[in-house]
């Protein structure tokens, strides 16, 4: 023992491994098994009262074998050290070095190969007896695995002379704590379609320089360890897509762990690591043990912005938007005499109108979300007030197109110049109108982008909505910038007036449909109220039209009359109850081909191993209704449903329904339609259908199930 201490000093090296070979202590600082050589090392060759030191267990592991980290992963066992001291001493927890991951088939483990040193902080008491030796014993348990696993245990021991503080040697680097720094950049954790999105807002972490990145969780079950952690670039840094495990996080709970990043720096690779503890954002629902949904995934903000833009473009073709835009195109033809600059101004004002409306919508959405409301896209149509006002607007636009009255929106700008105010206001309000009428049409691209948007912080949500608005406004803006495209438009003429009048009818149709939606939401009384409102609006429009060419006094009289009529129409709106009374499901049950959805019913059917087709719909969702008409209620489809014993469940989202919103969230959607098929006996493998259906699409998703089922 003394020899060892002297030897250490003679060498001049700070080798502090103290050999204990005296008869009193049979154990050594070293022990070996065929796979692992273990040794106990101390940070100090001698110790003193009150010293904070480190004791470390070094494991030298045979090639191809490994031991485990604090979270061993899918199998394996954590290495443990049981400390015993000859005097009362407190040992801390192992400060784990960065692990590696080992993959064997479908199983992923976290641990160490070749060599690892496990340091433990030790606090010596102030009353440590001087002159005596401090005897340290460590019972070390590990599991070492190659393909097969062997649990092993060794006992290691050390004797450390206790000397006054002034006399003990300097610490060595052999046994050292190497704490992993806490992330010095914002880290967020949000729920995503299939699990969790870990957002690492550090500009230093660019996807292009990251060679490998892995998040090692401290706890089992928070994430599925064997699933890939998909990396994507975000504006602020990078994002990792994690899959939820068997014990998913609840909102507000933190995901503790270590992020290890291998970065390329020229030829060299450097490893940096951070400890993270992001809390699962309260803005989103916790991930229920949900069926894994094959919803289209959105990776990162850039992609979401692109999808939103594309969705906005597609919106131009929607039946509710198209008339408004054609109107705009018509008005542009009439503006053909304008200078190019004036035209562009029109285009930008229109774009401004669209984008501003989308921003307002996004702010409203955020306000409602902050209030804790369970909402999704198209939420505004769940309010009967909104539906009724929309019916009014559509009807008024129709009247204007029919020529009952002229407002800025119509073709008043013929021959006008840049200073013509109605023309500019017309462009602005066309933009607003286009947005308002576009909202119920959720294009397939937008579903994914908006689902993503709803899980993001406010600034990103706003950006996504702006992108959506730009997409909607883009074709028209393009027309104003590209005179060649304008030449493709037909020459102005009388046909313009007729076309304009023709487009009035889709608007009346839309108004009619909204009244029908109201009937679904609130029953016959609502129909009476809204139709009376439409009558008042027609009356007001007529008064407005005839009063324009009269004297000032008469015009005043007209204004008063119009105001009274419009106020009365608005008063009728307020007579509708704000909270919708659900009558939709009941009133639908005229045919027996489907049953109303409830979570219990679905569970029960799945438990019985029955195949189930889910349809989440709403009366105000046009594509839902079209799909039902052209695909789901077709005899060919219904026949197959019957033959295969498929239960057809329909969930009605016409009115607010938190339970359905939650199911939509589980499948990464923020709105209807959603079609899901659960094959017989495979409740964990639901198939999500596209948002536009034909009988062929439905059948192709339903048929393969039978062949798949028999493959086991």
């Amino acid at each position, binding site marked *: 023992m003394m020899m060892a201490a002297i030897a250490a000093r003679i060498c001049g090296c700070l080798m502090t491994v103290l050999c204990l070979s005296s008869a009193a202590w049979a154990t050594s600082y070293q022990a070996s098994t065929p796979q692992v050589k273990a040794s106990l090392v101390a940070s100090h060759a001698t110790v003193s009262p009150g010293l904070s030191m480190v004791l470390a267990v070094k494991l030298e592991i045979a090639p191809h074998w490994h031991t485990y980290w604090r979270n061993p992963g*899918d*199998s*394996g*066992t*954590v290495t443990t050290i049981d400390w015993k001291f000859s005097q009362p001493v407190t040992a801390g927890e192992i400060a784990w070095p960065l692990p590696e991951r080992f993959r*064997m*088939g*479908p*199983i992923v*483990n976290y641990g160490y190969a070749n060599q690892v040193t496990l340091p433990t902080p030790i606090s010596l008491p102030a009353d440590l007896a001087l002159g005596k030796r401090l005897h340290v014993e460590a019972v070390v*348990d590990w*599991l070492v*695995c190659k*393909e*097969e*696993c*062997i*649990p092993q245990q060794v006992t290691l021991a050390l004797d450390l002379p206790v000397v006054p503080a002034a006399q003990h040697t300097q610490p060595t680097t052999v046994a050292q704590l190497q704490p992993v720094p806490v992330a010095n950049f914002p880290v967020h954790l949000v729920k995503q379609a299939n699990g969790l999105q870990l957002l690492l807002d550090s500009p230093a972490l660019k996807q292009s320089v990251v060679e490998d990145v892995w998040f090692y969780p401290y706890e*089992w*079950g928070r994430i599925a360890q*064997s699933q890939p952690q998909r990396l994507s670039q975000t504006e602020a840094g990078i994002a990792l897509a994690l899959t939820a495990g*068997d*014990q998913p996080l609840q909102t507000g709970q933190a995901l503790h762990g270590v992020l290890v990043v291998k970065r390329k720096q020229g030829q060299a690779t450097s490893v940096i690591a951070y400890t993270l503890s992001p809390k699962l954002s309260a803005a989103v629902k916790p991930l229920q*043990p949900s*069926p*894994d*949904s*094959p919803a*289209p*995934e959105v990776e990162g903000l850039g992609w979401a912005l692109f999808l939103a833009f*594309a969705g906005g473009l*597609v919106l131009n*073709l*929607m*039946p509710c938007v*198209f008339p408004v835009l054609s109107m705009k195109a018509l008005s542009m033809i009439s503006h053909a005499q304008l200078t190019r600059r004036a035209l562009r101004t029109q285009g930008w004002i229109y774009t401004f109108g669209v984008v501003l409306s989308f921003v307002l919508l996004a702010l409203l959405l955020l306000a409602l979300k902050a209030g804790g409301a369970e909402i999704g896209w198209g939420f505004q149509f769940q309010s009967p007030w909104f539906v009724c006002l929309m019916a009014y607007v559509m009807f008024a636009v129709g009247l204007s197109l029919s020529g009952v009255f002229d407002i800025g929106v119509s073709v008043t700008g013929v021959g006008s110049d840049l200073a013509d105010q109605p023309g500019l206001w017309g462009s602005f309000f066309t933009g607003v109108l286009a947005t308002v009428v576009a909202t119920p049409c959720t*294009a*397939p*691209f937008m579903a994914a982008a908006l689902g993503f948007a709803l899980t993001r912080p406010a600034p990103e949500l706003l950006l996504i909505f702006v992108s959506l608005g730009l997409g909607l406004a883009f074709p028209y803006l393009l027309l104003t910038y590209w005179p060649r495209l304008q030449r493709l438009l037909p020459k102005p003429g009388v046909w313009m007036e007729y076309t304009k009048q023709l487009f009035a009818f889709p608007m009346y*149709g839309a108004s009619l449909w909204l009244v029908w939606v109201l009937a679904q939401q609130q029953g016959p009384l609502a129909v009476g109220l809204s139709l009376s409102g439409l009558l008042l609006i027609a009356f007001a429009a007529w008064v407005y039209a005839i009063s324009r060419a009269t004297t000032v006094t008469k015009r005043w009289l007209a204004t008063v009359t119009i105001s009274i009529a419009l106020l009365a129409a608005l008063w009728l709106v307020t007579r509708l109850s704000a909270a919708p009374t659900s009558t939709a499901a009941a009133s639908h049950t005229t045919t027996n081909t489907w049953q109303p959805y409830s979570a219990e019913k679905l*569970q029960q059917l*799945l*438990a*019985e*191993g029955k195949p189930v087709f889910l349809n989440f719909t709403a009366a105000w969702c046009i*594509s839902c209704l*079209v799909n039902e008409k052209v695909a789901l209620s077709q005899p060919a489809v219904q026949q197959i449903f019957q033959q295969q014993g498929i239960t057809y469940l329909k969930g009605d989202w016409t009115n607010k329904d938190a339970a359905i919103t939650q199911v939509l969230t589980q499948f990464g959607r923020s709105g209807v339609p959603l079609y899901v098929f659960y094959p017989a*006996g*495979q*409740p*964990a*493998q*639901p*198939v*999500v*259908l*596209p*948002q*536009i259906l034909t009988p062929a699409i439905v059948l192709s998703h339903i048929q393969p199930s039978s062949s798949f089922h028999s493959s*086991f």
Partner: protein
Amino acid sequence: MQIKQFFTCALFIVMASSVSLAAHAEVTIDQPAPVFTANTAEGGKFNLESLKGKTVVLEWTNHECPFVKKHYESGNIPQLQKEALTKNIAWVQIISSAPGKQGYVSGAEAIKLNDARSAKPAYVVLDADGKVGQMYGAQTSPHIFIVDAKGVLVYKGGIDDIATAKKEDLVKANNYVREAWAALADGKKVPHASTKPYGCSIKYAS
């Protein structure tokens, strides 16, 4: 509407570009356990569906794994298997080790091993291609799954709560299988329905 065809056409183009991804297999608590048929050590067929009406315990095993040895040599699992027999619970031993890997046995060897260990599983399922193991996402030996009489998965995870290969830890451990059985007998929810499985990794073919 005159433009309907136009927009339907446009949407089909859009839709064609959004491809549905296939869901990956995963068993979920409170969902029906996936049914399967497989060969037994006796040379017959095992069919999970035919056991409806009975509680079923699926136990993944590998006789050479130290964690499995802990539970067999101590008599812990054989005792559970005997209790299962008296309670009319079907205990199914499943061996997913691939040929040439640790724990792979022929049917005859599996039966001999069970006799030597006084093990009394109701069924011994041979799953050398790992199909059943991967269907259930079995990761360790042992790894336990419990299916109730209605065919619903009510438990998945470890055999108990002390993840070691030491026999002396058995007395301190909370046995999750017994806990689940007690809850099922009382018609209650299994208190710890999903726990961390521990043991050796399953020696799958790939």
